[in-house]
């Protein structure tokens, strides 16, 4: 379990510095801001946001996750050459990726609440 958390920690640190994830967060910020400004009705803006999130988040999670893991092939090999169980290594990678995709959602949620306060 602890090795899983260690893999998660470093892998998440790598992913959070990815330009794509930063762009992804900015995308949600802009969308949220735009919807709130132009719809004039926070309830309708939220509804539109929900449909965008439902569509975009799984899509980006699948694409980003696939590309990330594909590029990490050699790194995964190096990790597997360490004295770790395969299960905790892959578990750490998976949770690390999921955590980053989720963290962006949290940031998006905060931004929405902050904007809704205006």
């Amino acid at each position, binding site marked *: 379990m602890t090795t899983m958390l260690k893999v998660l920690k470093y892998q998440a640190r790598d992913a959070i510095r990815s330009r794509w994830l930063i762009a992804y967060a900015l995308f949600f910020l802009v969308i949220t801001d735009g919807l709130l400004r132009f719809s004039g009705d926070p309830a309708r803006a939220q509804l539109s946001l929900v449909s965008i999130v439902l569509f975009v988040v799984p899509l980006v999670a699948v694409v980003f996750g696939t590309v990330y893991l594909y590029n990490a092939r050699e790194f995964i090999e190096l990790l597997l050459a360490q*004295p770790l169980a395969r299960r905790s290594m892959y578990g750490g990678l998976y949770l690390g990726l999921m955590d980053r995709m989720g963290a962006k959602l949290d940031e998006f949620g905060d931004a929405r609440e902050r904007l809704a306060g205006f």
Partner: protein
Amino acid sequence: MILLTKDTMDMDAPAPLVELRGIGKRFGKRSAAVDVLRAVDLTVHRGRVLAIVGPNGAGKTTLIKSVLGLTRPDAGEIAFDGTLVTGSDAYRARIGYMPQIARFPENLTGAELIAMLEDLRGPAARADRELVDRFALGDALRKPLRVLSGGTRQKINAVMAFLFVPDLLILDEPTAGLDPLSSSILKDKVLAERGSGRTVIVTSHIMSELEELADDVAFLLEGRVAFAGSLDELKRVTGQGTLERAAAAMMLRDPVGEAA
């Protein structure tokens, strides 16, 4: 025919560090299956440098990966220091592996990567940072790996293999992409490690380099061990003066030895 001479080696040597017995590995489905390794028997002696030589596709990397447990052989067994390794992870704490391709998470720095490995190996792991100084990597370790050149990444790759003072070092094409100075430093390090009793398995396509490093040679041909023994023996058997000539002579022979 090709002589199998490993029995003559076993006489005076202490118990071998790694022993492979009857390793077989097949990739692919029935119709398009490729037998990458066929009943490979190989002994890796303590305190010696073993060079694995063979043409492209002979199964060198698959053999190395089997020792590491990255590939699971279909047949045969591998013993590390007298214990079978099937399904266990702990023995890898005593192995340092330098993969052929040095690609790491782009946004981490070298220092973070090394910290991660130290973290994963636990506090008991001793860290040998000699190569960091020899390669003058101080500044490079603070930059994200994405901005470093291929050679610099290969140096970090080497640092990570030697980091934990392993009993067995596995180096897959270690000097690929290194300048002459850096590859000399790396070779000196390998010989120094051997001098302090560590065992090394190395593959390379540069025969002159292996000639400098190797004590023993295992020649793989189409998934079989065509020769295993000391470097001098290989030269004597083939009647050639250099490893390069000897390897070429081995390749020209009847590829599938009936004796193997």
